[in-house]
Every structure is written in C-alpha cells, then in structure tokens.
C-alpha cells in the first residue's frame, strides 16, 4: 500500500507542510466594484504564532480577514486555513476558526451568559456542554460578575472582551482578530492584550489586524505591513522598527539656538535629515536605520554646546514613520496619481536645516 501521490510527494508530508502554516494566502485578489481591496496578497502564518497585519484604513486588512473567515470569496488566488481551502472546504475552515471583528458582535438584548450559551449550542456542544463552556469562559476572563446583565448595559471595553470570549467558545486553533482594540481605553486595551498573549502561549495561531505599531510590536511574532491590498514588508517587529530608526524631537527656549541643536541631532541620528520649525522652536529628526538614540545622551550633548531645551523626547517609530520609510509617502494617500503629490507634500513639510 502506497501513501504516495502520483507526483511523488508523500501525502503525509504534504499534510505536514499544510499544518506548518496555519494560515496561508497566495496571490489573493478581491475587487468590490471599482475598488481593488486586495491586489495579490501573500501571507504565511506558521502554526502557533501571532501575525500582526499592520496597515492604514482601507489597506485591505479587513477584507483579508473576511476572505480567511469564509465571509467573502476571493476573485483570484488561494487561501487556506488550518490546511483547508476557504473556497472548497468552507465548513472545515469554519470549524477551525474564531472571529472577533471591529464591532462587538454580541447580542445586546441578551445577557453575557446567554450570548456564550447560544453560541455554544450553535457550535453543537449540546445544552449542558454549552452551559459549562460559558461558565468556564466567563470565569477565566473575569466576566462572571456581569454575566447576568444585559449586554446593552456593558461598557465598551467589556463588550469587546465578551466579543473576544465569544470567538473562543470552541477553543479554535486559529483566531482572527480584526482591530481588536480600536477605540478602547488603555486599560481595556491592556486586558485584551493580556488575553491574546495568554491564548498565544497556549498555542493558538492568531492573525490580528491593527493600525497601531505598538500593538503589533507587543503581540506579534511577525508583522506584515499591508498597503493598497498587498504586503509591502514582512518580518519580526524588532527588525521592522530597526529598519526605521527613532524619532527625536526637542523644543528650545531660544529660537537662536535652533541651528546648533540641529547639528547635534543630525550627528546623533547618524546624519539624519533634520526638520526645523522656527515658530514652534522645535527640531525633529528620524534616526538612520539601526541607529539608537538615548535620551540621557541627547540631553548631555545639547548641554555640552550650551543649548537649553525645554522639552526633549525620543519616541519609537509610529505607523506613520513606518509608512513613510517603506513607501516614501504619508500614509492614507489615495491612488497612485496622488502619491507623488503626497510625497512632495511630505518633503515640503520637512524644512531641511
């Protein structure tokens, strides 16, 4: 008896390869009317890792998740989740995934417990099984106290937490989180982060979309930067940040010292381009990739040349910095035609000293 397909590739190894990547997309295209939401997106998320899909509004993040969650069919290309093709075996995919979207997709007219109980039933855990599972999840995610209140009375953070929990009823091996913390206060955001980290540690493969580099940095093993429906950079978050450098800014008491400050900052940033704003009395620079700027050193060097700073800050790169570095334009730019204009605007803003 042979376990070998005619191509000579043993089936078992094919299965192993599929299992190695819990989420795969190759050349996925999706068009909505005149809008090309996805233009050949490639993605490969190893099982048991967290992948952060990072991009601005309209980059195609949500469409990518909807294709993977079998909610929209791709026009072209293939997508596989947990080894199952989304187009040919949608039910097998659905049995392997949990989805928490941008809205808190929970029933407001029911209690938190009702919501989980009903989802458990729909997942065919049976009446008792669904009740037990609801109890377990409420307890684990600190929602027992609010379990019997109508979701209508929940705070935004609690709703989102319940929504996340609602995607975990079957303990799915693959979890899709579409902007799980957008619009949440810092405390609620941290609670979601903790929950996601806990799930990842337990071996769940997580694909999350986000507009925040900080969130991707905190949670993801791999970050995929997506723009205009295609991946433009992939790698661990540290490497992504190193490729961009740090943003350094100082505000001076005396505008006459701006020139001297600019020289100091440029040197510290590895000859980075310095932007000087006379009216605000600020100097700003983004360091060359790989060059780290430390705040104490910045203050000492400014002091050494007699520059008095009333404010000094060293910030990790923002998503805007990442975008500027990767695409050479300000994020949120529209069609290709306007991109050149956006780039021109961006450089015009930076009055080089």
């Amino acid at each position, binding site marked *: 008896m042979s376990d070998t397909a005619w191509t000579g590739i043993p089936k078992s190894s094919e299965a192993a390869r599929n299992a190695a990547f819990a989420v795969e997309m190759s050349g996925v295209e999706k068009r909505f009317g005149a809008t090309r939401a996805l233009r050949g997106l490639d993605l490969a998320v190893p099982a048991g890792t967290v992948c952060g899909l990072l991009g601005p509004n309209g980059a195609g993040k949500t469409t990518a998740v909807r294709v993977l969650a*079998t909610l*929209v069919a791709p026009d072209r290309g293939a997508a596989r989740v947990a080894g199952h093709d989304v187009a040919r075996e949608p039910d097998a995919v659905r049995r392997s995934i949990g989805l928490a979207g*941008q809205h808190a997709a*929970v029933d407001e007219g029911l209690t938190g417990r009702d919501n989980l109980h*009903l*989802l458990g039933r*729909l997942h065919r855990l049976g009446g008792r099984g669904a009740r037990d599972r609801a109890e377990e999840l409420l307890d684990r995610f600190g929602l027992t106290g609010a379990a019997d209140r109508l979701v209508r009375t929940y705070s935004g953070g609690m709703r989102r937490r319940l929504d996340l929990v609602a995607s975990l009823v079957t303990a799915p091996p693959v979890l899709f989180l579409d902007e799980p913390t957008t619009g949440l206060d810092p405390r609620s955001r941290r609670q979601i982060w903790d929950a996601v980290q806990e799930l990842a540690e337990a071996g769940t493969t997580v694909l999350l979309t986000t507009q925040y580099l900080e969130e991707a940095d905190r949670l993801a093993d791999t970050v995929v930067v997506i723009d205009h429906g295609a991946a433009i950079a992939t790698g661990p978050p540290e490497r992504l940040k190193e490729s961009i450098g740090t943003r350094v800014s100082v505000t001076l008491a005396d505008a006459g010292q701006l020139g001297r400050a600019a020289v100091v900052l440029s040197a510290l940033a590895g000859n980075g381009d310095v932007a000087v704003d006379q009216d605000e009395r600020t100097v700003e620079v983004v360091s060359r990739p790989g060059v780290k700027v430390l705040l104490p050193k910045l203050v000492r060097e400014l002091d050494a040349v007699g520059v008095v700073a009333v404010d000094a800050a060293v910030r990790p790169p923002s998503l805007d910095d990442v975008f500027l570095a990767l695409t050479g334009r300000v994020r949120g730019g529209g069609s290709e035609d306007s991109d050149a204009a956006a780039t021109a605007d961006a450089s015009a803003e930076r009055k080089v000293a």
Partner: protein
Amino acid sequence: MSAVANLAADTWSSMLRVLLHYRRSPGLLAVSLAVPVLMVVVFGYVFGSAITVPGAETGAAGATGATGAPGASGAGSVDGYREFLMPGLFAMVAVNGIMPTMVGAARDVGRGVTDRLRSMAVSRTGLLLGQTLADLLVSVVVLALLAAVGLVVGWRIRGGAADAAGAFGLLLLFRFAMTWVGLLLGLAVGKEEAAGQLVVAVFPLAMVTNAFVPTGGMPGWLAAVAEWNPMSAVVQAGRDLFGNPSAPSAAWPMQHSVPAALLWCAVLLLVCGPFAVRKFASHGT
C-alpha cells in the same frame, strides 16, 4: 449527526435566541401584546363610530341564532363594523410582524452578529428558519389574545369549526410568509437606521387593503391595488371562513379568497425564503 439532525439542532438554537429576547425584556412581549389590543380600540371604536359597512347587517343577521351573543342580537352597523374589522386586524398583526423582523435582521448585519454566525459551521437555513419559527410561536399568542379581545367586543365565529381552524391556519401561514419578507428586507438593507425608515413604507401597504373600509368606495385604481394586495386576500378569506360580513367586490382574489390567499403565501414564501437564505449566506460578497 446527520444533516437533518444538524438542521433541527441549529433551528432550535436559533429559536431559543429569539425567545430569550422576550424572556430578558418582558416589556417587548407586553408591547407585542398591547399593540393589537390598542388597534381594536382605535379602529373598532374610533373608526367604527363613523363607518357603516354594506353587507355587514346581512352577515350579522344570518347569525341571530347564536345564543347569548351580545353583538349579534343588536345587529346594528357599529357591531357589524367590528365583525367586519376583526379579520382585518388579524391580518394587520401579521403584516406588522415584518417590522421587528426586518429591523432585527438589519441590526444583526450592522453590528457584525450576522458575520459571526456566518463564520461558524452552522446551517444557514436553520438559523433563519429558527428565527421565523420563533416569531410564528409568538404570533400564536398574539393572535389568541386578539381573538379573545375580539370576542369581548362582539366579534363571533359564525362558520364551522373546521373553517375557523382553517382561517387561523391561513393567518399563521401569512404571518410566517411576512417574517420571511421582513428577513429578506432586513438583510438587504443591512443598516438598522435604514430599516427603521423602511417601516414607514410598510404602513401604507397594510392600509391600502379591504381591512378597514370596503374597497367599493375607493377610486378605481386604488381599489384595484387594494383588491390585489396579498393582505386583502387573507382578510377576505378570514371573513369568508369565519362567516363574518364583507363588502361585495367582483375582483378575482375577493371572489376566490381562500385559493388567492394560499397562492399569495406560497409565492411570497417561495420567493423570499430562498432569496433570504442566499442573501444571508453570501452577505458582503
């Protein structure tokens, strides 16, 4: 589990969701029950005080044998109007059922609940069937209450028991079809606010019928619209089967009310049912 068992389980779970809403918000059920009672008062006594229905007196007169029926013995035009009205209100309650179903479906789409359900390995037909069956169950209660109120204000069943059972069955079938209409509209609209605005459009649909006044007095074109309105066929069938008075009309659906009503229900179900399931299954694509 077989496919049928899965369908049944998903249908039941989906029914539970709707019924739980009523349990968690007792006010919801109270409103569902209060509105029909209010309609009896508004239409039966406010409109009824000024409307006489041609043919109503003969309808009532034919039932003078009914013992202890306070309305029948009087056989006046006002009591006659309420006998004429009740089958109209039964059908009106069914048509009104479009609105909460439509708004609820649109809300689920807008808030992502539909997407979550669609991302699960759940029978699409089962989900929608459960919702409509639960609505049907609630409307059995509403219809029973409305019939009881009707009996209090002088409405009587003057036909045979089998005909009356047939009339109630037809009304429930119509209610079931209306739920599917509401589901399809709600899924198509997809936004709660937009669905709320559509409610305004449903109202005239229920008013341009034979439910409240005879079509004979309407301008010709409006009478034709009213007579071919699916709700009118159901109302007329109700009047014929309950043995209640009705105004004469030569239009085919009025002459053949029971087959016309059944035909309308079948058409609405066969069109809206599959389209609603398809819309649900392919939402956003």
